[in-house]
């Protein structure tokens, strides 16, 4: 199935900003994170604009956004 993956901030470095990628059925956010070699800690994960856990299953046509979880100071 096809998933649009969007990356933000330093997560783009050496990867991409936005790409449509192929994943097997029943893939989760964790599948995508692992595939891209992004540490799953301190990560904001959105599916179609909504916050979701790593275990969230994705479906064909979904958009997954991954953002670094920062903080202020």
């Amino acid at each position: 199935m096809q998933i649009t993956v969007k990356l933000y901030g330093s997560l783009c470095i050496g990867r991409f900003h936005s790409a449509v990628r192929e994943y097997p059925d029943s893939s989760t956010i964790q599948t995508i994170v692992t595939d891209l070699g992004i540490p799953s800690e301190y990560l904001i994960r959105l599916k179609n604009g909504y916050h979701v856990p790593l275990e969230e299953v994705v479906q064909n046509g979904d958009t997954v956004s991954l953002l670094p979880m920062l903080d202020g100071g």
Partner: protein
Amino acid sequence: MRILSQNPVTDPSTVLYRRCVVDLETGTATQEDVPCKNLEDVLGGFGRSYQILAERKISEAYCPENPLILNIGILTGSTVMTGLRSYFSSYSPLKQSRKGLPSAMWSAGSGNFGNKLKWTGLDEVIFENRSATPVYAVFSDGENGPQVEIKPAVHLLGLTGHEKIMALHKEYADAHFAVIGPAGENFNSVYMGAIILSTDNQLKSGEGKSRFAGRGGMGSMMGYKNLIAIVAQSSDKMGKITPDMRDVNRDVIKNGGSARFQPVSQGGHGGTWANIDVLQAFHAVPENNFRPKGDEDVAGLFRPNVEKDFDVHSEACFRCGIRCHNNLYHRNADGSRGALAAKFDFEPLILFGSNIGINDSRQVTELIHLCDYLGMDAISLGSTISYVLDYNARHPDQPLCDGVAFGQFDQIRELIVRTGRGKLSEVGRGVKRLSEQTGETSYAMHVKGLELPAYLPETNPAYAFAIAGGHMSMGTHMYLAKEGKTGLDDWVEVITRQGLLQVGYDMIGLCKFVGVGMGHELISRAIGEATGLKVSSEEIVTAVRRAYLRGLALELRQGYEDDEYTLPGQVFENPNPNVTLPAFVTREFFARMKQRVWAIFKPEMEGLLPE
């Protein structure tokens, strides 16, 4: 600090800290070893200073009885990485209840000044009264203990903060400095004066790489006391790093929390600057006075775009491996690195950028630099200016400040200079007072009289419970963007549990960018290794919670009423459809949240203040 036993919880009086009281009126100083009363005293910072402030009944900030307290945390000057913070506490000229009583405030800063103060042998200085003439105070490590001198400071008047530091550095080569800028000198017109702290990088390079204790007008308090600078002079006395301490420091660097603030080249996310990418994904970057437009104008401030114009270099405070500073340098004609332009942190970047309609990084750097040199709090100044610009957009026929408008760089620049030089008190006294004068308060971005940082109030209802700066004393400013949580239970829980523990870093002397919660074993390990004291994570959390609640109780004692625990009216009256995060902060939600938070806090607050 003298430590006579290992258990500061059951026997806090066996830990004694060295206090110096300076009477600025007479120019005399006394010193004593003070036994700690509780674990907050032992940990230090605002946990200790607020207990001193609570003993005084102060009805106006600018009065001789209002002390300015300089202290450090238990880990300041230790071998724990980032352990270099110093704290300034007083009743604030800026933050004031509707009854007109000043609120207690503290402000924290890095640099190497805190370490040097610790190495003079002092843990705390209380400045009493005010000097009739401008002076500076010198604390040094004499043969028989800490020494104090009060000296005339007329020659420093009118200089920028950086110029004062470099002038003093010529005279005191092995010292570090806390100074005020022209803004603090003009304390009657400027209530948002910052204290400017020197760094090793600054003294070596001669460039203005200071750090700031900005919030709450502590620099204006210094100005009121006619105390123009503080010198902490000592040889470096950094202890030997033990193998266990090496492990602590490795964990400071390796824990995922701090890794976020490390340079991109080090595998981190590049400091707080990167927040702009995250928040823009939700169109939640403040623009035009905290009113995101739903467009991509802020992209000019994204790192890759800024790097086209500037050489961006990661630097650090003394011995810090987190290296969160992003210093921007001009490029010479041959492509080599030129002079320092400014330091890019999220707050000043947004508040002197998109939030005042400026998205050209060259202009933003100039405004940041100017604010720093004049010695004002970037958050208070930036949020007050954006109010002026917003007001003018709504009232083109009767504008404020000569009609300056969003995006007008030259006019805004002039406005900053006039404010910092004491010529524009309507801006220098902050947005609460200004909006009360104009009668238009709903878009004045402050809570309880203290201007908001660059995180939208509609994404953080917990601002109401921050006691000393919206994001420095309540760790919920990114909660919605990070977790997406909008439930009442979630917000009550985050405020009353993790959120308030943010203030713990302003007790122990470490930097918040260590990135772990106060309940993390790393904190108790660091204290144990640096001091020999045995204190558990639970005990630290309990003491931090008490210190926070004491601060909240002190606000109530200074006259804050329930309806002052609120957000700018615009949040409820006119939600911004451009922000793609859920709009959940209705009046009803907010009232119920407050009721439940107070129900938890109020019983615990009983007995925390002296009778």
